[in-house]
């Protein structure tokens, strides 16, 4: 019998941070595997290098600070690293990917004091650092070439692409009238980031919502926040703006909606705050895509809203029981 | 044109410096408001446990930063926290063995009723009469120890303030 006097409650829901992280990894897996399938061993090398670098950096940081090296730290690092590589071009040089993972761990998380203390999403921070430092490598989008004995349909579809992302070509040409096939786009069979297969991300996301891993409020409001203004813009000038569905299916929007914006550490904790946070993310993504200098604005939008997150949380404190309405 | 922009900044600095020094002259306060604010909080027992002869001197020392906010044993943790907020000085975190506020108690076998202690008590927390056993009112006693120093019989013992000794309380959690 324990002789300690222990505080209530004496039972627990069984939910642990480690389990949460594991479920996020599971949610990411379909889209990751699709990316590896489409982009071959070079993508696999990138993912492996980044994971090894991320975990190694984490281990070193913990060691230097004489903190315990738990499995928890590792699973959160895996999530961060996966999110980073899935938002990178699939053939991004592996050593730069490893550098990115190290940056995510050191400057995204550890300098703030470790897990739970960071203000900005580590993966997005690292992505922005890479984008600014290596602009050429970061905008090199290869067409998908499935590695395995390719299914005829995928092969057919994949033939149609050249080296520009949907958003990139809209940005370059200033016209939305591009050769666009919806079906391959939905499955990520188009030039784009490693983890850019919207339908699989959506499935993973819905599974996580069902498992109560992420809050549906952030995901739903982010999608609405991007969908509504893009629908209006498309209705006004359909020649220069992508259709709303294509907006949702392209770039990192789905990844952001279900995996990046929902990062608990950098998002508000209040239910209402989460709504506003999601709406803000979605709207900023739209604004940067349409008016910004970059074709895709997910990373910047998330970082901006991360900075606002404490403010949103403070402004959306809900009414406590028994307080006057 | 450039000369204007080069000069304008130093000029601005000079004007503002003047304004500030003038404001300092005209709006100067006779007394340091911080010292007053500190004095307001101190128990005023003049017990001297902080190393200063009285609370007024201690307040000045605190405002100058030579004395920490946790120097006043009679005030306890509550006072230390208030002072640390007022002074903007962080308290040393309460790690290790926590010290609780103390009060004194008279050992009835030793007290001979000399009345020295209750004449000395700054808070009138000791009752008694000549040649009679004295008693300490523990809900007033601040544990300043003025009585301890004058007692010829060494009859005083310190004990934890009953406020902190009233049954068991949940300790602050220590994270693994």
């Amino acid at each position, binding site marked *: 019998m324990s002789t300690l006097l222990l505080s209530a*409650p004496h039972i627990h829901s069984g939910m642990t941070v480690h389990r949460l992280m594991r479920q996020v990894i599971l949610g990411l897996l379909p889209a990751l595997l699709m990316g590896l399938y489409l982009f071959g061993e070079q993508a696999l090398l990138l993912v492996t290098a980044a994971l090894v670098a991320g975990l190694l950096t984490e281990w070193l940081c913990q060691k230097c600070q004489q903190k315990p090296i738990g499995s928890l730290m590792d699973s959160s690092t895996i999530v961060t690293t996966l999110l980073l590589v899935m938002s990178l071009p699939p053939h991004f040089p592996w050593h730069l990917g490893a550098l990115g993972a190290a940056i995510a761990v050191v400057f995204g998380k550890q300098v703030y004091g470790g897990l739970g203390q960071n203000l900005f999403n580590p993966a997005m921070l690292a992505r922005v650092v890479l984008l600014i430092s290596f602009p050429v490598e970061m905008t090199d989008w290869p067409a998908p070439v499935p590695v395995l004995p390719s299914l005829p349909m995928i092969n057919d579809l994949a033939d149609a692409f050249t080296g520009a992302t949907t958003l990139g070509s809209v940005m370059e040409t200033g016209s939305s009238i591009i050769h666009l096939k919806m079906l391959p786009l939905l499955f990520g069979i188009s030039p784009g980031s490693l983890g850019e297969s919207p339908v699989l991300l959506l499935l993973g996301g819905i599974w996580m919502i069902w498992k109560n891993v992420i809050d549906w409020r952030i995901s739903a409001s982010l999608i609405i926040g991007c969908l509504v203004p893009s629908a209006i813009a498309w209705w006004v000038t359909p020649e220069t703006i992508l259709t709303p569905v294509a907006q949702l299916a392209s770039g990192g929007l789905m990844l952001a909606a279900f995996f990046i914006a929902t990062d608990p550490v950098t998002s508000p904790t209040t239910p209402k705050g989460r709504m506003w946070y999601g709406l803000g993310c979605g709207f900023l993504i739209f604004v940067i895509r349409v008016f910004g200098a970059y074709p895709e604005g997910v990373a910047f939008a998330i970082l901006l809203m991360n900075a606002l997150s404490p403010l949103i949380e403070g402004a959306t404190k809900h009414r*406590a029981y028994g307080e006057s309405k | 044109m450039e000369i204007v922009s080069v000069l304008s900044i130093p000029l601005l600095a000079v004007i503002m410096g003047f304004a500030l020094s003038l404001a300092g002259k005209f709006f100067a306060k006779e007394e340091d408001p911080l010292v007053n604010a500190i004095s307001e909080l101190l128990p005023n*027992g003049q017990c001297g446990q902080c190393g200063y002869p009285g609370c007024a001197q201690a307040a000045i020392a605190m405002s100058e930063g030579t004395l920490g906010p946790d120097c006043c044993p009679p005030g306890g943790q509550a006072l230390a926290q208030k002072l640390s907020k007022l002074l903007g000085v962080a308290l040393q975190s309460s790690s290790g063995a926590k010290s609780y506020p103390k009060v004194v108690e008279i050992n009835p076998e030793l007290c001979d009723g000399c009345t020295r202690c209750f004449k000395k008590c700054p808070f009138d927390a000791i009752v008694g009469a000549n040649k009679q056993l004295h008693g300490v009112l523990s809900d007033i006693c601040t544990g300043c120890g003025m009585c301890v120093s004058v007692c010829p019989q060494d009859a005083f013992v310190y004990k934890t303030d009953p406020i902190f000794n009233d049954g068991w309380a949940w300790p602050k959690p220590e994270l693994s």
Partner: protein
Amino acid sequence: MLFSKSLIKGGVHPVGQKQLSSNSDILRLPAPKRLFIALKQHSGAPAKPVVKAGDRVTAGQMIASGQGGSANIHAPQSGTVEKIEEHTAAIPGGGKQLMVHLVCDTEPESDYLVPTEYIKLNTDYQTREQLIDIIADAGIVGMGGAVFPAATKLRSTLKKDVETLLINGCECEPYLTCDDLVMQEQCVQVVGGIRYLLEACGAKKAIIGVENNKPQAMQSLIEATSEDDNIEVKALPTHYPMGSAKQFIQALCKVEVPKGKRSTDVGVFVQNVATCAAIYYAVRFGRPMTHRVVTLSGGALERPMNIEAPIGTLISELVASCGGLKSTAERIVVGGPMMGHTITNMHSPIMKGTSGILFLHEDELPQKSSSPCVSCGRCVAACPMGLLPNAMAEFIANDDLEMAGKQGLSSCLLCGSCAFICPASLPLTQYFAYATGEIGRQKKMEQKAQLARRLNQQRSERLEKEAVKKAAEKAAKKAARSAGKSPKRAAKTIEQES
């Protein structure tokens, strides 16, 4: 679940584990040889003993009278008071308390626990006040959790209009089934007690709220109230902490008790089902509150069940009646698993507020180590009071109790919902329990410091006056001496002349 509007804010859904102890009837034990009756059964001042060592007492005789917010205590069995001394108590921290050590007369014949012969209370009443007095005499306290004297609570209704009497049969704590079985087996007594309570608090109608995981109790109550138009039985969803008075009121009446106010301020009066049964026994039969039903449960116990035991029975004796332990009990919890506290010594007696004793196996317990907070916000969603547990805990961890107070710490129920759901397994409840106590002590210290300041000021003023007076006297003396006569002699001559 996603969009359904729940009756209360926040809350959690722990696994009930009620089936462990709810399937067997309430066990009644022969009288134990020795009882240890604590003088401090609940918060407030300890009751004042009215018996002394060596006294003979009869069952039902008052052995300690309530004072300063405490209730009377009666002897559950006839016997002899051995002594009144300290004994280990089943309280948080496991300290000792003054207890009446009662050596019971052995009655090997009686297998029914409640003695048939006992000193009856006077049960005549005409007015509400007199009815409340009977309840006060019987030493009845709320058996739900707060253990507040029922009569004190009832007296507060004399000055306020109570519209509705709410009877709490939620028993939202997992494992506990004592209220469930009381509702099933003593539904007539419960309803009888409700009728008395309606009279005592002046309410027009009563609603019994029962969580929907107790269908049999519901059924018994519906049958028992079939002739009462003003008593309604309502099913509530199984949702922790439905049984907390504030949440219970919110669920049944759709009103919130404003901060700093009491339930009677919103026209409702809440009482627990087992208390109703006790009130019935007191008013109908003149039987004081000397026994209660206790749940003994947990994965480490051989035969979990409910036992009706005299107040003061040692926990170790109750365990023996349940067939002992079948495996190591990693934690022994007094109360429910969400809000109860651990004890380390089974040689401590049950009290009026002891609803359950749980012997938890290691597998049932939460993990011990905690990880850093990832601000997942689950605690915010789970808090039934709408507080921000993560923010409050952070302030407390950094010793900023003032800010924690501003975040609404005083509203915290210590219900444990936040800590139950916390993926980081942070001891949130302990933070709040610690801070609540610490803030209270600091407030007392502050008041003391203020008192000390005032006394010091008065003292220096007095000393000054004395000094002035002394100086004046000295001056007068001097003046008198210079006039040739000492003032004393001058006074004497005046006396002689008159």
